[in-house]
């Protein structure tokens, strides 16, 4: 236990904890609307597509996450714009973006001479990779995103429930949707250094599904989602440090364990109700 408290004294762990807590809050709130809309695959698609930005950044010697964010914003905007297009299915569109981004990135990596050790940390996350600049970026993102979430909250709730009704009520449905998809994309990419491209979407999806198993109102679901996301990411980070493993898989597996725990609780509750 003493060792765990010692962890907090390390600057790289402080950066990782701060980043994880803020990302858990943001992704928890955004995931509350993304998952019911069956847009979870979008998260995967966007982060995989953003690998192209990282590849270009490493090739050109430019801050990779800046280019990855650009790709993510463009991808999020394309999804928002074409979401209801009758000529193309949504998952097909996301698949196209994912394949395009990843294929282009892998070709760039293949053509780029030399070994790229930082590629592994971008793919799977690294506790030590987060700098204070990254923390300031994540804090800045939170300062912008949280008030916008509050502003669009009612529109997000009602567009998730029934978009047509929200448009009849003259709510800013289109703007709320663009905000949701673009800022989800930005937040996911911002979390790439800690959780990795492959697994960052887990922090968006798994806590929401876990909360849905043990709550029965939106208010409780949001609180439990954020709590589970924070708990999962902190425990995962600690495991990553103790066992010297990539942080992304450790956090993802911790979240899965929490999901299984919620499933057990859900089963016990239903058995209790049945026997009563």
């Amino acid at each position, binding site marked *: 236990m003493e060792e765990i408290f010692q962890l907090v004294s390390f600057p790289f762990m402080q950066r990782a904890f701060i980043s994880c807590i803020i990302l858990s809050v943001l992704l928890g709130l955004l995931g509350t609307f993304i998952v019911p809309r069956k847009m979870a695959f979008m998260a995967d698609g966007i982060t995989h597509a953003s690998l192209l930005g990282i590849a270009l950044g490493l090739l050109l010697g430019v801050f990779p996450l800046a280019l990855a964010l650009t790709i993510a914003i463009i991808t999020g905007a394309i999804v928002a714009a074409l979401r209801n297009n009758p000529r193309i299915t949504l998952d097909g569109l996301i698949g196209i973006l994912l394949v395009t981004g990843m294929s282009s990135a892998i070709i760039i990596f293949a053509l780029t001479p030399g070994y790229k050790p930082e590629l592994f940390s971008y793919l799977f996350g690294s506790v030590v990779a987060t700098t204070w600049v990254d923390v300031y970026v994540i804090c800045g993102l939170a300062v912008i995103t949280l008030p916008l979430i509050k502003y669009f909250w009612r529109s997000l709730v009602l567009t*998730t*429930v029934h978009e047509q*009704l929200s*448009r009849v009520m003259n709510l800013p449905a289109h703007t709320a949707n663009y905000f949701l998809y673009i800022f989800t994309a930005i937040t996911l990419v911002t979390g790439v250094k800690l959780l990795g491209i492959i697994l960052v979407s887990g922090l968006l999806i798994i806590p929401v599904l876990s909360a*849905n198993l043990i709550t*029965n109102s939106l208010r409780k679901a949001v609180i439990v989602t954020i709590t589970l996301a924070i708990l999962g990411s902190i425990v995962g980070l600690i495991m990553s440090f103790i066992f010297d493993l990539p942080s992304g898989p450790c956090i993802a597996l911790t979240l899965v364990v929490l999901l299984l725990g919620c499933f057990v609780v859900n089963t016990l509750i239903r058995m209790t109700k049945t026997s009563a």
Partner: protein
Amino acid sequence: MSITRFNNKDQNIIELEDVSIVRDSNTVIRDASCCIPRNQLTFIVGENGSGKTSMVSSILGLLDISSGRITYNSSTDKELVIGYVPQKVEFPEHFQLTVTEYLKYSAHISKHDLSAVLERVDFPESHLKQRITELSGGQMQKLLLAAELARNPDILFLDEPLSNIDQGSGKHIIDVIMEIKDQGVTIVLISHDWQLVSSCADCVICLSCTSSPNCPCKNSLSEGNRELLQITSHNEHVTHEGYCYVQNL
């Protein structure tokens, strides 16, 4: 019997002039003209595929018209408040929204007003904490109606409001609709129920070809009313094939 004319802002809350609607390269409505009279109960009827939902969607702003004009005439300085209860709604399965929360977000209904709002549409209070995804089709329609009524609309569109509701509740819903009409709300119903049309309607917009033997107006309206079927334009000398409009049954 009076015939509604266009550009009559006092009499008509919504006017459609030569409206055409195209969906997926198909023209579902061509050059239709009609009015929705203020403070009255208007039925929109027609065969399947005649364009009823497309017309209502265009009025609600959910579907663009390819030509023509839709005019909204508010009796105050504020924009019209439009209410809409669709026939069928599929709520997302993994969204943990309760009945109470839905009413709070859709119509800003506080906990103190919940009982009165739900009693109006005969929605059981025991379901307040239930998730909206767990409601039956009929309960969902009552909930949607309760939320729309609480928004105090100037005009309320209902698509087949009794399709999922049992007979007893259906009578109650009709009583509520007539009551709010008397309070000054304009009501527009899409329905195939001609018994309902003949018992409740102040006027009917029929989106069927007048020459079609299947036009419901032919069998369900009196001779005197059927003479009015031909007049659909602000120009009384022009007759529109395909769309008929009856005023004041």
